[in-house]
Protein backbone atom coordinates (compact mmCIF):
# COMPACT_ATOMS: atom_id res chain seq x y z
CA UNK A 1 0.00 0.00 0.00
CA UNK A 2 1.18 3.52 -0.71
CA UNK A 3 2.39 5.02 2.59
CA UNK A 4 1.16 8.49 1.72
CA UNK A 5 -2.43 8.05 0.72
CA UNK A 6 -3.10 4.35 1.16
CA UNK A 7 -3.88 3.94 -2.50
CA UNK A 8 -4.20 0.54 -4.05
CA UNK A 9 -3.21 -0.33 -7.61
CA UNK A 10 -4.26 2.35 -10.02
CA UNK A 11 -3.06 0.23 -12.87
CA UNK A 12 -4.75 2.09 -15.68
CA UNK A 13 -2.93 5.39 -15.19
CA UNK A 14 0.76 6.25 -15.06
CA UNK A 15 2.80 9.34 -14.27
CA UNK A 16 6.00 10.24 -16.08
CA UNK A 17 8.24 13.03 -14.93
CA UNK A 18 9.73 14.22 -18.16
CA UNK A 19 13.50 14.39 -18.00
CA UNK A 20 13.52 12.20 -14.89
CA UNK A 21 12.96 8.59 -13.91
CA UNK A 22 9.55 6.94 -14.29
CA UNK A 23 7.29 6.76 -11.25
CA UNK A 24 5.58 3.40 -11.24
CA UNK A 25 2.87 2.22 -8.90
CA UNK A 26 1.84 -1.29 -8.17
CA UNK A 27 0.27 -2.04 -4.83
CA UNK A 28 -2.51 -4.34 -3.85
CA UNK A 29 -4.87 -4.47 -0.92
CA UNK A 30 -6.75 -7.43 0.42
CA UNK A 31 -9.55 -7.57 2.92
CA UNK A 32 -10.71 -10.57 4.90
CA UNK A 33 -14.30 -10.64 5.96
CA UNK A 34 -15.42 -12.53 9.05
CA UNK A 35 -18.77 -14.24 8.59
CA UNK A 36 -21.82 -13.75 10.78
CA UNK A 37 -25.56 -14.00 10.41
CA UNK A 38 -28.40 -11.52 10.59
CA UNK A 39 -29.21 -8.48 8.55
CA UNK A 40 -27.83 -5.05 9.38
CA UNK A 41 -28.53 -1.73 7.76
CA UNK A 42 -25.56 0.62 7.56
CA UNK A 43 -26.51 4.27 7.08
CA UNK A 44 -23.52 5.14 4.95
CA UNK A 45 -24.60 8.64 3.83
CA UNK A 46 -21.34 9.15 2.00
CA UNK A 47 -20.66 11.22 -1.09
CA UNK A 48 -19.49 8.96 -3.89
CA UNK A 49 -16.67 11.39 -4.67
CA UNK A 50 -15.74 11.62 -0.99
CA UNK A 51 -12.28 10.06 -1.43
CA UNK A 52 -11.49 12.28 -4.41
CA UNK A 53 -12.73 15.36 -2.57
CA UNK A 54 -10.62 14.57 0.51
CA UNK A 55 -7.50 14.20 -1.62
CA UNK A 56 -8.42 17.38 -3.50
CA UNK A 57 -8.66 19.30 -0.23
CA UNK A 58 -5.35 17.85 0.80
CA UNK A 59 -3.79 19.08 -2.46
CA UNK A 60 -5.46 22.46 -1.95
CA UNK A 61 -3.99 22.77 1.55
CA UNK A 62 -0.54 21.99 0.21
CA UNK A 63 -0.89 24.57 -2.56
CA UNK A 64 -2.22 27.21 -0.13
CA UNK A 65 0.57 26.61 2.36
CA UNK A 66 3.19 27.08 -0.35
CA UNK A 67 1.31 29.95 -1.99
CA UNK A 68 1.12 28.00 -5.24
CA UNK A 69 -1.50 29.08 -7.75
CA UNK A 70 -2.86 25.80 -9.12
CA UNK A 71 -5.07 26.13 -12.19
CA UNK A 72 -7.09 23.35 -13.77
CA UNK A 73 -7.28 23.97 -17.53
CA UNK A 74 -10.23 22.23 -19.17
CA UNK A 75 -11.58 22.20 -22.72
CA UNK A 76 -12.52 20.03 -25.67
CA UNK A 77 -9.60 18.42 -27.50
CA UNK A 78 -7.96 20.85 -29.91
CA UNK A 79 -9.01 24.17 -28.38
CA UNK A 80 -5.38 25.11 -27.82
CA UNK A 81 -4.61 24.37 -24.16
CA UNK A 82 -1.06 23.22 -24.85
CA UNK A 83 -0.41 26.09 -27.30
CA UNK A 84 -1.64 28.57 -24.70
CA UNK A 85 0.74 27.05 -22.15
CA UNK A 86 3.67 27.08 -24.58
CA UNK A 87 3.13 30.79 -25.28
CA UNK A 88 2.58 31.63 -21.62
CA UNK A 89 5.65 29.75 -20.40
CA UNK A 90 7.81 31.34 -23.08
CA UNK A 91 6.49 34.91 -22.71
CA UNK A 92 6.46 34.89 -18.90
CA UNK A 93 9.73 33.05 -18.46
CA UNK A 94 11.54 34.24 -15.34
CA UNK A 95 8.52 36.02 -13.85
CA UNK A 96 7.37 33.04 -11.76
CA UNK A 97 8.52 29.50 -11.15
CA UNK A 98 6.19 27.46 -13.39
CA UNK A 99 5.20 23.80 -13.24
CA UNK A 100 2.93 21.85 -15.56
CA UNK A 101 1.03 18.61 -15.16
CA UNK A 102 -0.17 17.23 -18.49
CA UNK A 103 -3.11 14.84 -18.68
CA UNK A 104 -3.67 12.72 -21.78
CA UNK A 105 -4.82 9.20 -22.41
CA UNK A 106 -1.62 8.25 -24.21
CA UNK A 107 1.85 9.56 -25.17
CA UNK A 108 4.14 12.24 -23.72
CA UNK A 109 3.73 14.52 -26.75
CA UNK A 110 2.25 17.43 -24.80
CA UNK A 111 4.75 17.09 -21.98
CA UNK A 112 7.57 17.06 -24.54
CA UNK A 113 6.28 20.37 -25.94
CA UNK A 114 6.18 21.88 -22.45
CA UNK A 115 9.60 20.42 -21.59
CA UNK A 116 11.00 22.19 -24.66
CA UNK A 117 10.12 25.55 -23.04
CA UNK A 118 12.41 24.66 -20.12
CA UNK A 119 9.53 24.11 -17.67
CA UNK A 120 9.35 21.25 -15.19
CA UNK A 121 6.55 18.98 -16.36
CA UNK A 122 4.92 15.67 -15.42
CA UNK A 123 2.82 13.69 -17.86
CA UNK A 124 -0.09 11.69 -16.52
CA UNK A 125 -1.35 9.05 -18.93
CA UNK A 126 -4.83 8.05 -17.88
CA UNK A 127 -4.87 4.98 -20.16
CA UNK A 128 -8.58 4.53 -20.86
CA UNK A 129 -9.55 7.22 -18.34
CA UNK A 130 -11.36 10.34 -19.52
CA UNK A 131 -10.30 12.75 -16.75
CA UNK A 132 -7.67 13.51 -14.13
CA UNK A 133 -8.49 12.96 -10.46
CA UNK A 134 -7.06 14.36 -7.23
CA UNK A 135 -5.14 11.18 -6.53
CA UNK A 136 -3.16 11.45 -9.78
CA UNK A 137 -2.35 15.08 -8.98
CA UNK A 138 -1.17 14.16 -5.47
CA UNK A 139 1.43 11.77 -6.88
CA UNK A 140 2.46 14.02 -9.75
CA UNK A 141 3.08 16.88 -7.31
CA UNK A 142 5.07 14.60 -4.98
CA UNK A 143 7.44 13.93 -7.84
CA UNK A 144 7.72 17.60 -8.84
CA UNK A 145 8.41 19.16 -5.43
CA UNK A 146 7.34 22.64 -6.53
CA UNK A 147 8.88 25.68 -4.79
CA UNK A 148 6.82 28.36 -3.06
CA UNK A 149 5.05 31.22 -4.87
CA UNK A 150 4.85 29.20 -8.07
CA UNK A 151 2.19 28.74 -10.72
CA UNK A 152 1.10 25.17 -11.46
CA UNK A 153 -0.87 24.56 -14.63
CA UNK A 154 -2.80 21.30 -14.72
CA UNK A 155 -3.82 20.57 -18.29
CA UNK A 156 -6.73 18.18 -17.98
CA UNK A 157 -7.67 15.52 -20.54
CA UNK A 158 -9.36 17.18 -23.53
CA UNK A 159 -13.00 16.51 -22.66
CA UNK A 160 -15.77 18.95 -21.78
CA UNK A 161 -17.84 16.42 -19.85
CA UNK A 162 -16.09 14.14 -17.37
CA UNK A 163 -13.39 16.40 -15.85
CA UNK A 164 -16.16 18.71 -14.58
CA UNK A 165 -17.00 16.28 -11.77
CA UNK A 166 -13.52 15.88 -10.35
CA UNK A 167 -12.03 18.47 -8.01
CA UNK A 168 -8.23 18.33 -8.24
CA UNK A 169 -7.56 20.85 -5.47
CA UNK A 170 -7.11 23.72 -7.91
CA UNK A 171 -7.55 27.36 -6.94
CA UNK A 172 -9.48 28.16 -10.10
CA UNK A 173 -10.83 26.26 -13.06
CA UNK A 174 -10.18 27.81 -16.45
CA UNK A 175 -12.27 26.64 -19.39
CA UNK A 176 -10.88 27.24 -22.89
CA UNK A 177 -13.03 27.40 -26.00
CA UNK A 178 -11.82 28.20 -29.50
CA UNK A 179 -13.73 30.08 -32.18
CA UNK A 180 -13.58 27.06 -34.48
CA UNK A 181 -16.01 25.34 -32.11
CA UNK A 182 -19.73 26.11 -31.88
CA UNK A 183 -20.64 29.26 -29.94
CA UNK A 184 -23.45 27.29 -28.26
CA UNK A 185 -21.03 24.95 -26.47
CA UNK A 186 -21.62 26.55 -23.04
CA UNK A 187 -25.26 25.39 -23.01
CA UNK A 188 -24.52 22.06 -24.71
CA UNK A 189 -21.88 21.23 -22.08
CA UNK A 190 -23.07 23.39 -19.17
CA UNK A 191 -21.34 21.60 -16.27
CA UNK A 192 -17.87 22.72 -17.27
CA UNK A 193 -18.91 26.34 -17.70
CA UNK A 194 -20.89 26.20 -14.46
CA UNK A 195 -17.83 25.15 -12.43
CA UNK A 196 -15.22 27.44 -14.06
CA UNK A 197 -14.31 30.98 -13.05
CA UNK A 198 -12.52 32.10 -16.21
CA UNK A 199 -13.29 31.37 -19.86
CA UNK A 200 -10.49 31.91 -22.37
CA UNK A 201 -11.73 32.29 -25.94
CA UNK A 202 -8.83 31.21 -28.16
CA UNK A 203 -7.99 31.50 -31.88
CA UNK A 204 -9.65 34.92 -32.27
CA UNK A 205 -7.38 35.55 -35.29
CA UNK A 206 -9.72 33.13 -37.13
CA UNK A 207 -12.91 35.09 -36.34
CA UNK A 208 -13.21 36.58 -39.87
CA UNK A 209 -13.34 33.06 -41.34
CA UNK A 210 -15.77 31.26 -39.03
CA UNK A 211 -19.44 31.72 -38.10
CA UNK A 212 -18.66 32.25 -34.40
CA UNK A 213 -20.21 35.09 -32.41
CA UNK A 214 -18.32 36.37 -29.36
CA UNK A 215 -21.53 37.96 -28.08
CA UNK A 216 -23.45 34.71 -28.40
CA UNK A 217 -20.86 32.54 -26.69
CA UNK A 218 -20.65 34.96 -23.77
CA UNK A 219 -24.39 35.25 -23.48
CA UNK A 220 -24.81 31.46 -23.49
CA UNK A 221 -22.02 31.04 -20.95
CA UNK A 222 -23.55 33.67 -18.66
CA UNK A 223 -26.85 31.81 -18.73
CA UNK A 224 -25.03 28.93 -17.08
CA UNK A 225 -22.65 31.02 -14.94
CA UNK A 226 -23.38 34.76 -14.63
CA UNK A 227 -20.10 35.34 -12.75
CA UNK A 228 -17.84 33.86 -15.47
CA UNK A 229 -14.98 36.13 -16.63
CA UNK A 230 -13.76 36.15 -20.26
CA UNK A 231 -10.41 36.78 -21.91
CA UNK A 232 -10.14 36.68 -25.71
CA UNK A 233 -6.78 35.59 -27.09
CA UNK A 234 -4.93 34.28 -30.10
CA UNK A 235 -1.91 32.14 -29.35
CA UNK A 236 -0.86 32.53 -33.00
CA UNK A 237 -0.92 36.33 -33.27
CA UNK A 238 -0.42 37.03 -29.56
CA UNK A 239 -3.47 39.29 -29.45
CA UNK A 240 -5.10 39.48 -26.02
CA UNK A 241 -2.44 37.42 -24.26
CA UNK A 242 -1.36 40.38 -22.11
CA UNK A 243 -4.81 40.27 -20.47
CA UNK A 244 -4.27 36.64 -19.55
CA UNK A 245 -0.80 37.34 -18.19
CA UNK A 246 -2.21 40.21 -16.12
CA UNK A 247 -4.92 37.90 -14.77
CA UNK A 248 -2.25 35.38 -13.69
CA UNK A 249 -0.14 38.07 -12.01
CA UNK A 250 -3.12 39.33 -10.04
CA UNK A 251 -3.89 35.83 -8.79
CA UNK A 252 -0.44 35.28 -7.25
CA UNK A 253 -0.02 37.74 -4.39
CA UNK A 254 3.76 37.59 -4.31
CA UNK A 255 5.88 38.71 -7.28
CA UNK A 256 9.61 39.03 -7.99
CA UNK A 257 10.23 35.60 -6.53
CA UNK A 258 12.58 33.98 -8.99
Amino acid at each position, binding site marked *: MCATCGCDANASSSIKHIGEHDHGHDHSQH*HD*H*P*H*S*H*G*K*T*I*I*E*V*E*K*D*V*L*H*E*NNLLAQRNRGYFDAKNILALNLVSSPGSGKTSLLERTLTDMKGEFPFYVIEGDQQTTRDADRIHATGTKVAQINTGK*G*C*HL*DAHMILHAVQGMKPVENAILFIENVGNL*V*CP*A*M*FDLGEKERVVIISVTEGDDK*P*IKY*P*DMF*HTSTLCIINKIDLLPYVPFSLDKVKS*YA*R*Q*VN*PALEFIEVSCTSGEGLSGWYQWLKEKVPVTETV
Partner: protein
Amino acid sequence: MHELSIVMSILDIAEKELAKSNAAHIEEIELEIGELSGIDMQAFDFAWQQAVKSTKLETADKIVTHIPGEGLCMDCETVFPMHELYKPCPVCGHHFITLLKGKELRVKSLVIN
Protein backbone atom coordinates in the same frame (compact mmCIF):
# COMPACT_ATOMS: atom_id res chain seq x y z
CA MET B 1 -17.61 7.57 -19.52
CA HIS B 2 -16.74 8.92 -16.07
CA GLU B 3 -19.62 6.72 -14.89
CA LEU B 4 -17.18 3.81 -14.62
CA SER B 5 -15.00 5.75 -12.14
CA ILE B 6 -18.15 6.64 -10.22
CA VAL B 7 -19.17 2.98 -10.02
CA MET B 8 -15.64 2.05 -8.90
CA SER B 9 -15.85 4.68 -6.12
CA ILE B 10 -19.22 3.27 -5.00
CA LEU B 11 -17.74 -0.22 -4.98
CA ASP B 12 -14.82 1.03 -2.92
CA ILE B 13 -17.12 2.69 -0.35
CA ALA B 14 -19.32 -0.41 -0.12
CA GLU B 15 -16.43 -2.83 0.30
CA LYS B 16 -14.79 -0.64 2.96
CA GLU B 17 -18.06 -0.44 4.92
CA LEU B 18 -18.47 -4.20 4.65
CA ALA B 19 -14.90 -4.78 5.83
CA LYS B 20 -15.58 -2.65 8.94
CA SER B 21 -18.51 -4.87 9.85
CA ASN B 22 -18.74 -8.53 10.79
CA ALA B 23 -20.90 -9.33 7.79
CA ALA B 24 -19.93 -11.17 4.64
CA HIS B 25 -22.52 -10.14 2.08
CA ILE B 26 -24.13 -7.00 0.75
CA GLU B 27 -27.82 -7.64 0.09
CA GLU B 28 -28.80 -4.18 -0.97
CA ILE B 29 -27.24 -0.82 -1.75
CA GLU B 30 -29.22 2.40 -1.85
CA LEU B 31 -27.92 5.32 -3.90
CA GLU B 32 -29.08 8.92 -4.32
CA ILE B 33 -28.38 10.40 -7.73
CA GLY B 34 -29.35 13.97 -8.51
CA GLU B 35 -30.75 15.06 -11.85
CA LEU B 36 -27.90 17.57 -12.34
CA SER B 37 -25.11 15.38 -10.95
CA GLY B 38 -23.67 14.74 -14.40
CA ILE B 39 -24.51 11.04 -14.40
CA ASP B 40 -25.98 9.46 -17.50
CA MET B 41 -28.08 6.64 -16.09
CA GLN B 42 -27.75 4.44 -19.17
CA ALA B 43 -23.96 4.68 -19.04
CA PHE B 44 -24.09 4.23 -15.27
CA ASP B 45 -26.13 1.02 -15.49
CA PHE B 46 -23.87 -0.33 -18.21
CA ALA B 47 -20.75 0.45 -16.17
CA TRP B 48 -22.40 -1.09 -13.10
CA GLN B 49 -23.07 -4.42 -14.81
CA GLN B 50 -19.45 -4.74 -15.85
CA ALA B 51 -17.78 -3.34 -12.73
CA VAL B 52 -19.58 -5.34 -10.03
CA LYS B 53 -18.71 -8.73 -11.54
CA SER B 54 -16.85 -10.89 -9.00
CA THR B 55 -17.22 -8.22 -6.30
CA LYS B 56 -19.28 -7.95 -3.12
CA LEU B 57 -21.87 -5.95 -5.06
CA GLU B 58 -22.42 -8.55 -7.77
CA THR B 59 -25.52 -10.00 -6.15
CA ALA B 60 -26.65 -6.88 -4.28
CA ASP B 61 -29.92 -5.18 -5.19
CA LYS B 62 -29.26 -1.65 -6.38
CA ILE B 63 -31.89 0.88 -5.38
CA VAL B 64 -31.50 4.31 -6.94
CA THR B 65 -33.40 7.33 -5.64
CA HIS B 66 -33.42 10.04 -8.29
CA ILE B 67 -33.43 13.54 -6.86
CA PRO B 68 -34.99 16.20 -9.10
CA GLY B 69 -33.09 19.45 -9.62
CA GLU B 70 -34.24 22.51 -7.68
CA GLY B 71 -32.99 26.07 -8.04
CA LEU B 72 -33.30 29.23 -5.94
CA CYS B 73 -33.36 32.53 -7.83
CA MET B 74 -31.07 34.98 -6.06
CA ASP B 75 -32.98 37.93 -7.53
CA CYS B 76 -36.61 37.13 -6.69
CA GLU B 77 -36.12 34.20 -4.29
CA THR B 78 -38.37 31.87 -6.29
CA VAL B 79 -37.70 28.17 -5.71
CA PHE B 80 -38.37 26.21 -8.90
CA PRO B 81 -37.73 22.83 -10.54
CA MET B 82 -34.46 22.98 -12.46
CA HIS B 83 -33.86 20.46 -15.20
CA GLU B 84 -31.06 22.29 -17.02
CA LEU B 85 -28.29 24.55 -15.72
CA TYR B 86 -28.83 27.20 -18.41
CA LYS B 87 -32.56 27.90 -17.98
CA PRO B 88 -33.49 31.22 -16.36
CA CYS B 89 -35.76 31.75 -13.35
CA PRO B 90 -39.32 31.11 -14.62
CA VAL B 91 -40.65 34.15 -12.72
CA CYS B 92 -38.16 37.00 -13.28
CA GLY B 93 -36.05 35.54 -16.12
CA HIS B 94 -32.70 36.13 -14.41
CA HIS B 95 -29.80 33.68 -14.30
CA PHE B 96 -28.40 34.24 -10.80
CA ILE B 97 -29.48 30.87 -9.51
CA THR B 98 -28.24 28.75 -6.63
CA LEU B 99 -28.71 25.01 -6.93
CA LEU B 100 -30.57 23.66 -3.92
CA LYS B 101 -30.96 20.06 -5.08
CA GLY B 102 -29.91 17.86 -7.95
CA LYS B 103 -26.12 17.56 -7.49
CA GLU B 104 -26.40 14.61 -5.08
CA LEU B 105 -24.28 11.56 -5.70
CA ARG B 106 -24.33 9.54 -2.51
CA VAL B 107 -24.25 6.06 -1.10
CA LYS B 108 -27.18 6.29 1.29
CA SER B 109 -27.23 2.89 2.91
CA LEU B 110 -26.22 -0.76 2.72
CA VAL B 111 -28.06 -3.84 3.90
CA ILE B 112 -25.53 -6.48 4.88
CA ASN B 113 -25.67 -9.92 6.41
